[in-house]
């Protein structure tokens, strides 16, 4: 079920009420291939003479690598290449922009392959390429590694302690006024503040404070990391890989291996889920290095165990939230502290978590302090709205308790303190064109919100925010000789971008959607685009597509004017045809097919390419309401009903937008109820498989209702805002708040697993 709630007057430039395709629900252009198994994913490609690549991983969470002896493995028949950290160049300790944001190249390379130290259980130490999987496995067993096992630390607060084992001798806490003299696991401290915190709390009638923690969770994509790489004897490379960005793969491989980017051609495979976790490299540089040594193509596919142990989860965290409010619910102060596990290298999403923590609220006095803390666990990777769900869990749980303390309706409390157009966001800038109030109202007025509840049932509300981004993007539109069109972009299709790109082009060109074919091209066939992430593709790449199609329309008008013998200003483009506006001339309309057939006589092939750096992505807000029932005997939580409202700007393809919202909710429910990395005392993950690390399946969830609130983004030609990340922000707290309602007790530690709930019930 879905509703669309529109503001009466849209300010989107092209949304004049006459849209034919944008806003409709055509079938997906990639659908047939995917449901018939023809779509090629990362592991599907096979090449003649291809070898199997496998990785030797550290059994220890923290160990100095004394030596690696590969002689026995090299002597094994069928082994064609073996690499270790010594096969990679030393990289500078500097940040380089490749994906969406800068990465430290040295850390990236050391995460791909360890050198002096193994920093987590699962850290890559060596890799082999062999003629079969069995030979590769045997070769791994013959590699002799001598370790000096070091003390390890997993928990974030333990890693912050003065006596904690230090992971990096040269890591000094950043963000302090004076550089520390002693290395630390605290990579960075960040702070955002406004007003006078003490005065704000002094002004409050009610103060609520609590501590919260969340477990590390994995993005849980079904498709493991996989690639095929081939380096020819002249140094020219080809990579086929499942990722969120073929250009990101190209850049990182070029940097890690110190080869020219133009020598690497990356072809994007279909992607079986990424959710931020495929915004970096793990296997691709290894496969290229193995191919370089062996002279043959190399395929590498992670096992599920490797995905969990060696690719990025998101952070575990510990938070404290303190809120002050007047008796009428007006927030006067907020004090938030966030401690985030970064894994083996700095770079947790604590910065974004800090910026989003209070973004839904207009609070005069606040302080948000965040800590980025390295631990002997896999380096975290982005996960949908990185960091925001975590801080929202703390803040929205506290807001729920504050509403209970004040005797206020939870939505009324949020409405009273909501940001609006003109409000200065907690992270600085002034909000413009936001639809938060409308989104709150959409849930308040939804039948779900007033539906009766039964015994052992509870209802929770939570809100969430994400910035959304734009960025560098390229799109090309080419017209075939029969007047059909191809739309070529450089972004893997994760959430339906093929459909939305084709729809925007079709809308501008005036073609039926069936006549527009979207293509995701390799890095040599289209200009650069940032990766698919940050909820940017429909917004930013869509802007490039629209401009490319508009450029073609201008060219078509020029060509039509030539053929009609009229001036170009007498030609308009109306629903796919050139029309002479001077009816006295009696000129017949010329369709796109007519003009394409005569392209040779009017200037040659018809096509255009636009490259731009899209700015002005509108921020998104979500408001969720969740009903649960808790079984008091077992502590099991059943999600009874879930409704999510979100300001989406303009839904280009509403079914995909609904899918994004529903997918975000499903992942958030898993994060709230089941998912967690469980480590033994030796720092080894105990549940590295989907049997023991339980993501929600269809039978765990009800139909997730969506309400799309459309407050147009004036910077996008059709008013679109990013939609993919906001929906994972509220569910953690929405579920926790519903459980609070069901059992009458506040649960502050995720996941809300049955044993924890039983313990809370039993505690009386």
């Amino acid at each position, binding site marked *: 079920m879905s509703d669309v709630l529109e503001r009466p007057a849209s300010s989107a430039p092209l949304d004049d009420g006459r849209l034919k395709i944008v806003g409709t629900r055509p079938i997906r252009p990639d659908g047939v291939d995917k449901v018939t198994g023809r779509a090629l994913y990362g592991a599907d490609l096979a090449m003649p003479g291809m070898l199997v690549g496998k990785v030797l991983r550290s059994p220890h969470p923290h160990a100095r690598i004394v030596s690696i002896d590969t002689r026995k493995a090299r002597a094994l028949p069928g082994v064609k290449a073996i690499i270790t950290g010594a096969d990679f160049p030393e990289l500078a300790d500097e940040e380089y922009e490749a994906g969406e944001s800068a990465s430290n190249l040295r850390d990236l390379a050391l995460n791909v392959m360890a050198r002096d130290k193994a920093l987590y259980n699962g850290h890559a130490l060596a890799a082999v390429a062999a003629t079969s999987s069995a030979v590769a496995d045997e070769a791994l067993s013959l590699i002799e590694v001598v370790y000096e096992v070091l003390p390890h630390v997993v928990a974030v607060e333990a890693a912050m302690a003065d006596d904690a084992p230090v992971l990096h001798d040269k890591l000094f806490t950043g963000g302090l006024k004076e550089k520390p003299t002693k290395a630390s696991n605290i990579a960075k401290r960040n702070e955002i503040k406004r007003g006078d915190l003490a005065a704000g709390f002094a002004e409050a009638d009610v103060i609520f404070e609590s501590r919260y923690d969340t477990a590390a969770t994995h993005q849980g994509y079904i498709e493991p990391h996989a690639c095929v790489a081939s380096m020819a004897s002249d140094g020219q490379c080809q990579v086929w890989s499942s990722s969120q960005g073929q250009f990101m793969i190209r850049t990182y491989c070029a940097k890690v291996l110190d080869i020219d980017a133009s020598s690497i051609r990356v072809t994007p495979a279909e992607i079986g889920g990424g959710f931020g976790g495929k915004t970096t490299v793990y296997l691709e540089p290894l496969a290229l290095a193995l191919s370089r040594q062996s002279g043959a193509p190399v395929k590498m596919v992670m096992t599920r165990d490797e995905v969990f142990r060696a690719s990025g989860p998101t952070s575990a965290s510990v938070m404290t939230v303190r809120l002050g409010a007047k008796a009428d619910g007006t927030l006067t102060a907020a004090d938030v502290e966030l401690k985030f596990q970064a894994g083996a290298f700095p770079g947790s999403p604590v910065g974004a978590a800090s910026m989003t923590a209070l973004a839904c609220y207009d609070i005069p006095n606040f302080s948000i302090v965040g800590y980025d803390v390295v631990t002997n666990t896999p380096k975290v990777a982005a996960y949908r709205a990185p960091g925001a769900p975590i801080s929202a869990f703390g803040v929205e749980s506290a807001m729920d308790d504050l509403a209970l303390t004040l005797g206020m309706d939870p939505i009324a409390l949020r409405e009273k303190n909501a940001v609006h157009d003109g409000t200065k966001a907690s992270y600085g800038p002034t909000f413009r064109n936001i639809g938060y109030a409308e989104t709150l109202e959409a849930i308040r007025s939804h039948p779900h919100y007033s539906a009766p509840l039964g015994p052992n049932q509870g209802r929770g509300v939570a809100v969430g925010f994400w910035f959304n*981004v734009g960025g560098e993007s390229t799109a090309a539109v080419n017209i075939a000789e029969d007047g059909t069109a191809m739309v070529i972009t450089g972004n893997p299709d994760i959430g339906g971008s093929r459909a939305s790109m084709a729809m925007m082009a079709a809308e501008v060109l005036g073609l039926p959607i069936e006549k527009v074919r979207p293509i995701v091209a390799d890095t040599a066939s289209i200009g650069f685009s940032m990766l698919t*992430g940050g909820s940017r593709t429909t917004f930013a790449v869509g802007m490039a597509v629209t401009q490319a199609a508009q450029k073609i329309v201008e060219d078509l008008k020029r060509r039509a004017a030539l053929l009609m013998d009229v001036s170009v200003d007498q030609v308009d483009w109306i629903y796919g045809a050139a029309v002479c506006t001077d009816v006295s001339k009696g000129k017949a309309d010329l369709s796109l097919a007519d003009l394409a057939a005569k392209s040779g006589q009017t200037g040659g092939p018809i096509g255009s390419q636009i490259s731009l750096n899209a700015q002005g992505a509108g921020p998104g807000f979500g408001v969720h309401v969740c009903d649960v029932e808790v079984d008091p005997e077992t502590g099991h939580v059943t999600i009874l009903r879930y409704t999510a409202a979100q300001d989406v700007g303009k839904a280009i393809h509403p079914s995909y937008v609904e899918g994004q919202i529903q997918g975000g909710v499903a992942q958030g429910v898993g994060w709230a109820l089941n998912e967690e990395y469980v480590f033994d005392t030796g720092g080894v993950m105990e549940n590295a498989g989907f049997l023991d690390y339980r993501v929600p399946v269809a039978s765990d969830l009800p139909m997730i209702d969506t309400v799309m609130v459309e407050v147009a983004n004036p910077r996008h030609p059709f008013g679109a805002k990013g939609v993919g990340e906001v929906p994972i922000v509220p569910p953690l707290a929405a579920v926790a708040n519903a459980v609070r309602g069901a059992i009458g007790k506040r649960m502050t530690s995720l996941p809300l697993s049955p044993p924890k709930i039983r313990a809370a019930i039993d505690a009386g």
Partner: protein
Amino acid sequence: MPHVVVACSSCRAFTGDVTTFDVEAATVREMIRELERRYPGFGEHIERKMAIAIDGEIHQDALFEPLRAESEVYLIPKIGGG
């Protein structure tokens, strides 16, 4: 002239306790150059690590974005996503 506000602690390593500036600048690049002149190293830090919100709209890598005399400019960390 545009009013520039530093909203994160990483910038204070360059500016100390100063968090707001009035800068004579018609574009983002001119603003960055002027801040680099006042606080050596700060300009490079902005270019590499900061997004720039101009009158509420967040820009990344937009050196030539125009600034109005009354523009409100916030320097915030660059934003990625998942």
